[in-house]
Structures are given as structure tokens and as C-alpha cells.
């Protein structure tokens, strides 16, 4: 199968890339592991507030439907419940339950997202310890509750939003722990959980999970200014599950397999494929976009997908419109990152661009 663009991952970055390329009259194939497109948007029940975004004020679940609708209207080919198992010089292998296929794309965009970070504590592998995103999937996608009383570890936006959504679903969030001396996420989200009466315990962390085959309680501890647990400050909390909202790491494995240079940038979530401002990796014609290009937000993922696809389009066949689209979207992304929370990302991307001398 000969195609212009292969998009790996059907979340915000991938869908935005696919739509952009199809609108520029390219043949596009999207591959996603799930039976439904949308990536992690399908569990985001909160409203987005990207300042310059077209989707400001819309819930993530609805953005997923809008994007899927566009993909269908543009007649973009999808391979769902399929996995790209390898990118080779003579083709890309895609596996599904039914078949192993090889495609020959001119350009590839890797939009594989991110995975949740683990935290080191006693019994952290006990059933009932979940990534916060996993709890969001259970509760918001399947309508299934993992328990009645939750402990949230981490007060970044994900920790705050998931705490709020748990309360909406009838779960009691006993506390939100934060190792820093200030709340990590946006003030709007913090205010919402505080109004519900959920205590945010600053300079606290989890010491252990208790239980035989399932979480039955958690022991928390205070931290001193050197991040060391303060002896005697331990407290046992009666909870039946624990959510870890301690950050995400880019899913870079496929890019690494394809030979892309991988670099470590803490501000962007750790190891990730090195890339240029046009999102192209060190392998010519191989792009990365969204959380796989540095953990950020759905809005920036949408913009990055657009930039990568427009740049790929221009490099398949030079065209002014695509060039212009790259420039205007890069400007839009800059404006989106101009706020207080964009500082870290800007610093991370600056380090990234400076980090490789090929």
C-alpha cells in the first residue's frame, strides 16, 4: 500500500495531523490500537481552555467526536485495533488480530502519546494502586468505580481534575498529596476541589500501601525541606484505592526502533525523540507530535499535529499554503505557551533544539 502519510496514534495530535494532511489533498492512513479514535480525549469530561484554541470551552469527549467526524468526512483510511510493530527502511509493519500488513508511506508521524509514571513506595504494585489516567478511563469511559474512598498522589492538573471527576461520580477523595510546597496545577482546578472540601496536603507523600491482595489503607508522611520523610509524622488513611498522578513520560519506543535519536529533557517528561521546531526527528521524513514529543496538553498536541503534517506536506511537494500553515501554527503554539505554565515547556524545547549536533 502506497500512501503519502502514515499517522501512528489517533489521539489529538494524530487526528489533527491526519485531518491537516487530508485537507492538503494527501492520502493518509491512521493506525490506532483502540477500537475507537480519540486517544485520551475520550475520557476528558472537563472543558478545555486553550486561549487561542478553536476548542476553547468544549469538553474533551466532544472534541474527540468533532475530530472523528472530520476524519470520516474526509474519507481518511483507519486501521483500528492495530499496532505498528516496526518501522523499517523497506516498509512499516502493522499487526492486527487478523493480519500483518506492510505499508510504504512517504512520511510518518508518530503520535503515540505518553505513559504514566510510577512512584517508589512500599507495595506500589498492589492491585488498587492505579495511574490517575487509568481511573479516569474506568470511571469516565466505562462507568466503573474502582472503589469508594480514594487517595490522590500529586496535585498537578491531572491529580486535581481526576479528584474532581471522582467526586462527581460519587467517590470520596480522602486527600490529595503534594510533595512540593505549592499546588502543581491551575488555580481554577485547585479551587474546584477545595470547594468540595478535599484537603490538599502540601509537603506530603505516600510511604506505603497496605493490604494483602488489594489496597485496604495507605500510610502517608510529611516531608521536610530536603524531601526527607519526617519520622513520627506518618498517618494511616482509610482508603480502598490509590491514584498516582505523578507525571507522564513520552512513549518514544517506536521512534527509537526507527532509529531516531533519543534525548533526556526533564522539562518535557524525560526520554523523547529529538526533533526540530517542525517536529521532524533525526530520521528524515519521520515526525513526532503531541505528548510523544514532550508531555504537554491536548491543545498543544492538536497544534503540533498540524505543524508536523503541514511540514510533511510541503516536503512531499513544495507548496506555499502548507509553508504558511507551518508558520502560523507555530506562532499560535508560541502564544499558547506564553502563559505561566508554558515556561517549563519553552525551556525544555530550547534545551532540546540545542541538544543535538548531528
Amino acid at each position, binding site marked *: 500500500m502506497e500512501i503519502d502519510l502514515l499517522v501512528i496514534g489517533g489521539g489529538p495530535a494524530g487526528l489533527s495531523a491526519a485531518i491537516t494532511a487530508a485537507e492538503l489533498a494527501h492520502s493518509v492512513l491512521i493506525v490506532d490500537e483502540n477500537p475507537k479514535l480519540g486517544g485520551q480525549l475520550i475520557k476528558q469530561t472537563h472543558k478545555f481552555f486553550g486561549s487561542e484554541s478553536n476548542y476553547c470551552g468544549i469538553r474533551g469527549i466532544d472534541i474527540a467526536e468533532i475530530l472523528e467526524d472530520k476524519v470520516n468526512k474526509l474519507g481518511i483510511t483507519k486501521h483500528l485495533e492495530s499496532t505498528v510493530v516496526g518501522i523499517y527502511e523497506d516498509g512499516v509493519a502493522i499487526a492486527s488480530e487478523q493480519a500483518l500488513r506492510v505499508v510504504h508511506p512517504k512520511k510518518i508521524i508518530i503520535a503515540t502519546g505518553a505513559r504514566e509514571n510510577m512512584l517508589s513506595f512500599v507495595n506500589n504494585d498492589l492491585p488498587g494502586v492505579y495511574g490517575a*489516567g487509568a481511573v479516569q478511563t474506568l470511571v469516565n469511559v466505562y462507568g466503573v468505580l474502582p472503589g469508594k474512598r480514594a487517595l490522590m498522589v500529586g496535585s498537578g492538573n491531572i491529580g486535581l481534575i481526576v479528584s474532581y471527576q471522582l467526586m462527581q461520580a460519587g467517590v470520596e477523595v480522602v486527600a490529595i498529596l503534594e510533595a512540593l510546597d505549592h499546588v502543581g496545577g491551575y488555580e481554577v482546578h485547585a479551587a474546584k476541589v477545595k470547594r468540595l472540601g478535599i484537603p490538599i496536603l502540601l509537603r506530603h507523600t505516600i510511604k506505603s500501601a497496605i493490604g494483602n491482595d488489594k489496597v485496604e489503607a495507605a500510610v502517608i508522611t510529611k516531608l521536610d525541606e530536603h524531601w526527607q520523610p519526617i519520622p513520627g509524622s506518618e498517618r494511616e488513611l482509610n482508603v480502598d484505592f490509590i491514584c498516582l498522578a505523578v507525571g507522564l513520560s513520552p512513549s518514544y519506543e517506536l521512534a527509537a526502533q526507527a532509529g531516531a535519536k533519543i534525548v533526556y529533557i526533564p522539562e518535557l517528561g524525560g526520554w523523547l525523540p529529538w526533533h526540530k521546531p517542525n517536529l521532524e526527528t533525526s530520521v528524515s521524513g519521520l515526525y513526532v507530535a503531541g505528548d510523544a514529543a514532550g508531555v504537554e496538553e491536548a491543545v498543544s498536541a492538536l497544534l503540533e499535529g498540524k505543524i508536523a503534517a503541514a511540514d510533511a506536506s510541503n516536503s512531499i511537494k513544495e507548496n506555499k499554503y502548507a509553508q504558511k500553515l507551518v508558520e502560523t501554527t507555530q506562532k499560535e503554539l508560541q502564544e499558547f505557551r506564553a502563559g505561566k505554565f508554558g515556561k517549563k515547556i519553552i525551556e525544555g524545547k530550547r534545551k532540546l533544539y540545542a541538544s543535538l549536533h548531528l
Partner: protein
Amino acid sequence: MRITEHPIIKFKRGRKVTIYFEGKPIEAYEGESVAAALIAAGIYVFRYSPRHKRARGLFCAIGKCSSCLMQIDGKPNQMACMVHVRDGMRVRRQKGKGVLDGN
């Protein structure tokens, strides 16, 4: 535990089906993952680890961490979070390393 009423979300559950966990029938809905169906039924231990035989359950729910590997319809190492239920599906806890049964 399943949510029946929610302030924002209308859950569109599929057709009701039966899956078998360790031979015991469990109610599930088409369109949901094996992991979701098991947790809805109060089952949290999905496997035991190879070396220390520690209980493991769902962790990431999106096919990235491999904490939820189970034996599904005879096949080992299936991610319970990524496999969707089918009527009559047989699900077993994986004990240690996944082994193909050779049938």
C-alpha cells in the same frame, strides 16, 4: 461497581454478555474491556508475578504497562485493559510467566 447516574456522562452500554472468570460467570457489556468488567464485578487481582508471586492488577488501563496480563480464551499475556469482552469469553488469572498450552 457500576455508575448508574452521573451529572455529565450518559453511559451507552452495549449488549449484555457473559464472560467466565476462573469458570465463574460474570455479567459484562459489549464495548467494555475485560479489565473494566472484572473491576465492576469486584475482581482486582488479575495475575501473580513470576518471581515473588505478588498479586497484580490494572495500573495504566491503556495498554502501556503490562500489569494486567491475563490468560484469555487460552492465550497468555493478553492485556485485560485492551481486550474487549465477547460473549462466552474465558478469562483466567495468569500465574507466573505466560505459557502457550500447545493445543
